């Protein structure tokens, strides 16, 4: 019983990281219709900045985390302004390729300064909560709680605020927005920033488990993308559910079958789901 609880909790925690990635991808996709393959690098930068701040410079963790998230938010906005605005009228594919290009560049820069794997201490420390026979890491609980906070925050943002209304409008029609006088470029920049911030948060939370290295962002990006697809492209609840499912698949398969299978479990899951239900779990027939 305690095994099941521990596996479930660590699965949900890992899943929360993927859910954060998927949410970041979804928010950029919903507003700009571009799939932001750079999301993995936001996670990477979050982890790297946290490492530098906490391990190399010995600064207080919360302060470092806040600064790191803020910096990545700004970077996201900057990249949106410098790279994507000029490409707004370009074919879709060009915009996606541009995100790839930035992935290469950021990975190269990180690899140049920090080529090896480094460990990151958990934000919640190494304390463990006992639940009967089961031991649950405080870091895992923190991760899940933060996802819940973000999820509720997004739901509120989307349905109760002016900004949310703007976002929903921009996914309906960019031209309509422009005609209504909405500054679409600034909106996009903010959304890119938010996507980046979510990625950085994921990186800080996942750093202890994933280890900080230049490749750190690849799996979370791909699995975040898988989670987003699993839940149905463009669906926020889908992104969260998809992320949690992928995380659970990873830990449950890893524990009950083999850890190696656990690593590909997310991909097997997406293969199965999409072959049986091409629109994903929450997607609509025409979305792709």
């Amino acid at each position, binding site marked *: 019983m305690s095994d099941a609880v521990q596996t479930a909790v660590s699965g949900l925690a890992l899943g929360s990281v993927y859910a954060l990635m998927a949410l970041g991808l979804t928010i950029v996709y919903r507003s700009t219709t571009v799939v932001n393959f750079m999301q993995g690098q936001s996670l990477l930068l979050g982890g790297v900045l946290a490492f530098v701040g906490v391990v190399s410079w010995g600064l207080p963790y919360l302060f470092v985390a806040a600064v790191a998230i803020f910096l990545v938010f700004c970077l996201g906005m900057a990249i949106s302004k410098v790279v994507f605005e000029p490409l707004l009228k370009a074919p879709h*594919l060009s915009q996606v390729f541009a995100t790839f*290009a930035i992935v290469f*560049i950021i990975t*190269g*820069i990180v690899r*140049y300064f920090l080529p090896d794997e480094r460990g990151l201490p958990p934000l919640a420390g190494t304390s463990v909560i006992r639940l009967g026979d089961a031991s649950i890491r405080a870091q895992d609980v923190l991760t899940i709680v933060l996802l819940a906070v973000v999820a509720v925050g997004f739901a509120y943002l989307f349905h109760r605020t002016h900004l949310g209304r703007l976002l929903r409008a921009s996914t309906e029609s960019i031209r309509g927005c422009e005609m209504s006088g909405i500054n679409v470029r600034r909106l996009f920049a903010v959304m890119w920033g938010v996507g980046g911030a979510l990625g950085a948060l994921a990186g800080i939370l996942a750093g202890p488990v994933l280890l900080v290295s230049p490749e750190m962002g690849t799996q979370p990006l791909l699995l975040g993308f898988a989670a987003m697809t699993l839940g149905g*492209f463009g669906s926020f609840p889908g992104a969260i559910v998809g992320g949690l499912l992928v995380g659970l698949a990873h830990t449950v398969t890893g524990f009950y079958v083999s850890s190696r299978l656990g690593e590909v479990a997310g*991909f097997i899951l997406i293969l199965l789901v999409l072959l049986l239900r091409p629109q994903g779990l929450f997607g609509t027939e025409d979305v*792709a």
Partner: protein
Amino acid sequence: MRRPAISRSTLVVGGLVLVAAIVPQGLNDYTLFLAATVFTYAMIAMGLNLVLGWTGQFAFIDVAFFGIGSYVGARIGSVLELPLELALLVGIAAGLVVGLGFGALVSRLRRYYLSIVTIAFMFVLVYVYENATSLTGGLAGFTVPDPQLLVLGGLEISGEYGLYYIGLTLLVATYAFVTWLGRTQLARGWRTLRMSEDVAASLGVDVYRSKVIAIAVAGGILGLAGAWFPYVTGSVFPSSYGFPQLLFDFLVVVVGGLGSMRGAVIAAIALGVVNEKLRGLIGVSEIAFGVVLLACVMFLRRGVYGELAARVPEMREKVI
């Protein structure tokens, strides 16, 4: 005005092949090995370009099918000690058959769903390569002996010259095939469907079947490249068949210009050489590739070859 019997572009390509056939006499082993390697990258690029560039499907099948070529073609070839031609045929067949099956399963998926499924497929295959140890050699991979050529009476080819010429022959054969393919009705259908599936359907193109055939044919090309490459390097390791290779292949096709086979070949050779030269400098090759890709996206919309071809009419590939 009479059309010349042999077009100018055929002469140029023929000339290049002639040069490529003569030049190696003066080159050292390392350069020959590098050349054989980039020739293989060029074949992979053509395979990926068929799907990504010609049909516009976001199917990143390159590494998966390259791996199938290696793990089926080269594996069977080395275990059963087959002559090279047969091992390559096995690779092509494996690529074709799996391509048909996989294509049939995924060709109804759109855009990004298709891309994640093909990427997931690649990862699952790597898992199989790493863990089905008795079949695949597991994490340690397997080695491949010197190729024996059936057409030369079972002659064993050792040494880089032989590998270079075989690689060059395979590259030229693939290019000729792809060029021929590009002039068929099938390819015209692909180009139309890339532009718009609805338009293609209204013109009588069986969209689904076209997509499946594209993946199957590309699978065959990639299977050929995959079966051949282990003979160049001498061994197969599962780690070579993952995401970094996919990124490189994708970069090559984009820089060369999506849809341009010539661009794909040139970009594969150029970027393959650059990649090798920058191998020692950590991180630099990635930054360089990223900058090149960004430059291509922002300024050279049709890829390097495409932009040049737009300015030099003789370079244009026939697009019917």
